[in-house]
């Protein structure tokens, strides 16, 4: 499934989708950035509740397909602009990380 394809599901709302056709391949959940860089695979959907600017760099370097913000977490406009410029897809959801994972296991 593509990142844009997730939007068909009501759980997800778009934050920015500069590369919506990117294919999702697996999921990683984590908020500690070095764990994400060490353990996430390229193409993963990355579920996190972190909302500072460094998540954009981490998603870019770890080459994840998208960031999925759980628990209704929001980002500043500045971070969204940076993500757009760097080609980083971000979706948001009010679901918890666990609920998102359950949802993704059905969709992917």
């Amino acid at each position: 499934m593509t990142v844009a394809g997730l939007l068909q599901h009501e759980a997800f709302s778009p934050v920015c989708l500069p590369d919506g056709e990117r294919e999702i391949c697996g999921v990683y959940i984590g908020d500690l950035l070095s764990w994400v860089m060490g353990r996430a695979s390229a193409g993963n959907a990355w579920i996190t509740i972190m909302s500072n600017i460094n998540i954009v760099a981490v998603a870019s370097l770890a080459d994840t397909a998208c960031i999925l913000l759980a628990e209704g977490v929001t980002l500043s406009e500045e971070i969204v602009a940076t993500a757009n410029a760097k080609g980083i897809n971000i979706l948001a959801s009010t679901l918890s990380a666990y609920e998102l994972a359950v949802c993704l296991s059905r969709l992917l």
Partner: protein
Amino acid sequence: MNGQLTFHFDVDGSDFTSAGQASVQVKKDLRQLGLSPEIIRRVSIAMYEGEINMVIHAGGGTADVVVTEEEIEIILTDHGPGIRDIAQAMQEGFSTAPDNIRSLGFGAGMGLPNMKRYTDHMDIQSEVGVGTVVTMRVSIPK
């Protein structure tokens, strides 16, 4: 590619929001050189971890990257407090990061282990009160 390419970056130790710029730039440059996504990913994550360490633990420093046909070498130099016990610092989970840094998602003590994992060679030279030089190399498969 003929000969070698070198890149030099000053890593600002005061600005957390721009931390990682050198690594992001190197990622772009390596992509333009046509290196494989896997090599680029390993190099840029290892460099980012080192760059962030210089910002968090050493007040900034410099990053030099040398690309030849055989390998990519990254040299991170800082004049921070140095590392007293390198073996301890290399352990997964060891961190001296303060709480404000932890709240940003850093400080898991996984940076140096990641740098080791993602590179083919890693060496740390450090002297307390003088600074730290981290050298990493990733071989480019033929």
